[in-house]
């Protein structure tokens, strides 16, 4: 049986594939395509690095002063109930 998806279809869905946002059947088809196709395999690695960049950036935490203010406000609300 021949390949069911081509390079264009595979690359357009790379992000969904990497985020596991597709049916297992389609994921398997893409995985099989990447195994066979070096340019698409490279493209997948490129997109993986791009997604990793976004995951690791902007890990700011809620400032402690804001957290304390919110906890205090909630306490006031609760006492009003």
């Amino acid at each position, binding site marked *: 049986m021949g390949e069911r998806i081509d390079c264009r279809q595979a*690359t*357009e869905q790379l*992000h*969904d594939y990497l*985020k596991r*946002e597709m049916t297992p059947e389609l994921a398997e088809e893409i995985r099989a395509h990447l195994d066979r196709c070096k*340019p698409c395999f*490279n*493209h997948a*690695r*490129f*997109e993986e*690095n*791009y*997604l*990793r*960049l*976004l*995951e*690791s*950036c*902007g*890990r*700011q*935490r*809620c*400032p402690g002063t*804001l*957290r304390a*203010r*919110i*906890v205090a*406000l*909630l*306490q006031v*609300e*609760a*006492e009003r*109930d």
Partner: protein
Amino acid sequence: MAEPSAAVRSFDAEALPHLDALYRVALRLTADPTQAEDLVQDTMLKAYRSWRQYRPGTNAKGWLLTILRNTFINDYRRRKIEPIAMDLEAVEPHALFRAVEEVDPEGTFFSRIVDEKVLEAVDALPPEFREVLVLSDVEGMSYAEIAETLELPLGTVKSRLFRARRLLQARLYAYAVEMGYIKPRESRDG
């Protein structure tokens, strides 16, 4: 001080763990730390007051983010100074990979871009693209969770994400070229 009631305890237990995520999303929506703090505070108060509508054990983070996003749209968007938005038409329709595969096939230039610049590029996305990208690719929410949170059809979430990623890649590429992290693609003949 009075003992906290059961309602307060359950709100504290379910909602407070999401403060970091709420703050990060608020930062990206407002692009302003002071407004982000106000937005998170307003969100938490609204959430507390409508806590009875939350069904225990469902997705508290999504529920809170829906309130945050609606509060932002209703009360903040008008106040906001939008960053200079990207020119949607200027973005090439194909993936960035095609432009760099010969010089940097693994995209190592991505790792040289500092977080601050990545976030600046995120903030320059048009708002409807920015929110899906932040929830998906920065906060790691699933497409279905995002659709529920933003009250959008799943197909809309997917198509906006597709566009948002390409827009962002184009912006990051332009920055990397400007900084000399990567050589620009040779212009085509003719």
